[in-house]
């Protein structure tokens, strides 16, 4: 273990002295998550406010007076209202994606109801937000109108809503974070546990083969197992460091109480001591699994270039379940015990559940056992690779 410790410290020093590697492994995860959260907060703000949504109204010669009044109501509701000369011009504007939603008010005579034609392109994602806000606005306006009419006829206005559901939230845990963050965080934590080590993979063994430094290391009294253990520890530290760096990013941005992220952190930062401990518990075997895998790739590769070609394939294998973790919460499969058997997905899912306030100990220990078992298996294989002269000494 003495040799493994010396190798571990050297690898870590060597890695941290490289500005590029240091930034990509320890600084970037923090800044990326801060950037993503700020972006998420900004988009959430942008979408939720009518101020930012433009509505176009067809201003024809026979435009009813009520339409003029409606324009004022929309403006008072903070919508940005523009006028367009005709329906044809509105349609053209929608086709050109310059107009998101256009309204044409038609009233045949003064006694007839006001008909509102609504134009939008369902394929334009940007149009769906103002349309939704506008529809909500119409629902509320209609409701108000019905209430006024009922009241004028001496009927209780509450009857305008004969079916009024009373919503009571029954939570299965005490989630203290925003659902957007709860969905995003586990994905980033797991992904960074893998990407954090990627920067070092090239140098660890393949790079040493390429630069002819590996032989000098293998010629020391350190056993091949010690060499593998030292390098694995260094790689694991970087993987863990990257993950925790992204977690630290959340704590930092949450503690700054910025206006743009206010809504996202309305219920707090979202990381309790319990959820942090669960995250760490499932992260450690996952890191062992990733570090062993990355080290084995470095060992079997003849040079840095070959190592990164292998990584391109492994990358997809890791990313696919990680991406799935983003959506699994919407399905019943998230609560299936089978999830614990799927590496990467199991870690992200368990973290997501913990951040949501649910501590499913079967899933937690299942994830730890599965990822730990896979990690140990890959580690044993990697140590065997280190003891094979046709693997370690081929260039």
């Amino acid at each position: 273990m003495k040799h493994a410790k010396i190798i571990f410290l050297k690898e870590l020093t060597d890695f941290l002295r490289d500005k590029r590697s240091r930034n990509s492994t320890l600084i970037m995860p923090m800044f990326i998550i801060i950037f993503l959260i700020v972006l998420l907060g900004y988009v959430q703000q942008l979408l939720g406010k009518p101020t930012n949504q433009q509505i176009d109204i067809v201003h024809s010669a026979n435009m009813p007076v009520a339409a003029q009044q409606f324009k004022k109501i929309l403006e008072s509701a903070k919508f940005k209202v523009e006028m367009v000369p005709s329906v044809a011009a509105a349609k053209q504007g929608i086709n050109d994606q310059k107009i998101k939603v256009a309204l044409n008010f038609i009233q045949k005579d003064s006694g007839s109801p006001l008909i509102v034609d609504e134009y939008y392109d369902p394929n334009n994602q940007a149009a769906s937000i103002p349309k939704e806000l506008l529809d909500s606005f119409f629902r509320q306006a209609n409701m108000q109108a019905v209430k006024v009419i009922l009241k004028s006829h001496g009927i209780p206005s509450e009857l305008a809503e004969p079916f009024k559901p009373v919503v009571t939230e029954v939570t299965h845990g005490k989630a203290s974070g925003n659902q957007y963050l709860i969905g995003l965080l586990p994905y980033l934590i797991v992904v960074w546990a893998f990407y954090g080590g990627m920067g070092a993979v090239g140098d660890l063994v393949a790079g040493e083969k390429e630069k002819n430094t590996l032989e000098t290391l293998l010629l020391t009294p350190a056993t091949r197992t010690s060499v593998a253990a030292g390098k694995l520890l260094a790689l694991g530290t970087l993987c863990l460091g990257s993950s925790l760096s992204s977690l630290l990013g959340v704590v930092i941005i949450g503690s700054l109480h910025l206006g743009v992220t206010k809504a996202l952190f309305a219920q707090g930062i979202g990381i309790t001591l319990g959820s942090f401990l669960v995250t760490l518990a499932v992260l450690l075997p996952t890191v062992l699994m990733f570090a062993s895998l990355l080290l084995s790739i470095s060992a079997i590769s003849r040079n840095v270039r070959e190592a990164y070609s292998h990584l391109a394939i492994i990358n997809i294998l890791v990313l696919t379940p990680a991406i799935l973790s983003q959506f699994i919460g919407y399905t019943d499969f998230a609560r299936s015990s089978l999830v614990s058997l799927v590496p990467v997905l199991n870690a992200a899912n368990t973290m997501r559940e913990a951040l949501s306030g649910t501590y499913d100990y079967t899933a937690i220990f299942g994830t730890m056992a599965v990822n730990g078992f896979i990690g140990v298996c890959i580690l044993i294989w990697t140590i065997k690779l280190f003891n094979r002269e046709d693997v370690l000494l081929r260039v």
Partner: protein
Amino acid sequence: MVIVNELVKEFNPKKKEKVIAVKGISFEAKEGEIFGLIGDNGAGKTTTLRVLSTLISPTSGTVTVGGKDVVADSTAVRASLGFLSGTTGLYARLNPRDLLRYFGGLYGLVEPDLTKRINYLIDRFQIGDFADRQCDRLSTGQKQRVGLARAIIHSPKILFLDEPTAGLDVQASQGVLEFIEGARNQGHTIIFCTHIMTEVERLCDRVVILHEGRIVGSGTVDEIKAQAGEESMEKAFLKIVDYKPEAVIF
């Protein structure tokens, strides 16, 4: 000190493309001598040296280094020898001082002896001016000096040198050759692989010539020249390996 007996090394023994790099060679390098291992490319020099230094295991035959078997006692063998080749690299982001500390630690040196040894080697190889500069910023000659210091950080009695002057200029080569002579004078056993016959004539006490994995000549430099009936070692070598001039097209 180094005894090689009927050494055979096969690569890919279970596959169709089986290569027998070393075909039953035997020799003995005695204490305090420079033993030359010479041969053309593919003769088996580097493979032999790799077996001797425990990097790869022999297919058959026995090898003992300093009385220890390279298979049964590989850790002790590695602890007793120093290795340097012309292509050996240094860790780019470490400086020479860190590098010596790293290898010193791996060879079991502890404080305060480790620092004393590092300071001695920095002084001995005149590394002081660049001891704290990253290795990737050193010249080829400076790197070779650091490489030499690294190879003897643990004061080994046996040195394996594989073309240690490859790629060096005249001055740097001279420094390496003087180092080798100095090591012999201090009683070290040196196995010296090279292509350069002037170095063989200058340094080697005894020599074996390898060709296609077999020993085709052995003895002192004078004995080999006499066997071949040639005045220079280069001509003797070419004659022994049965060199046939190839057509050169300009």
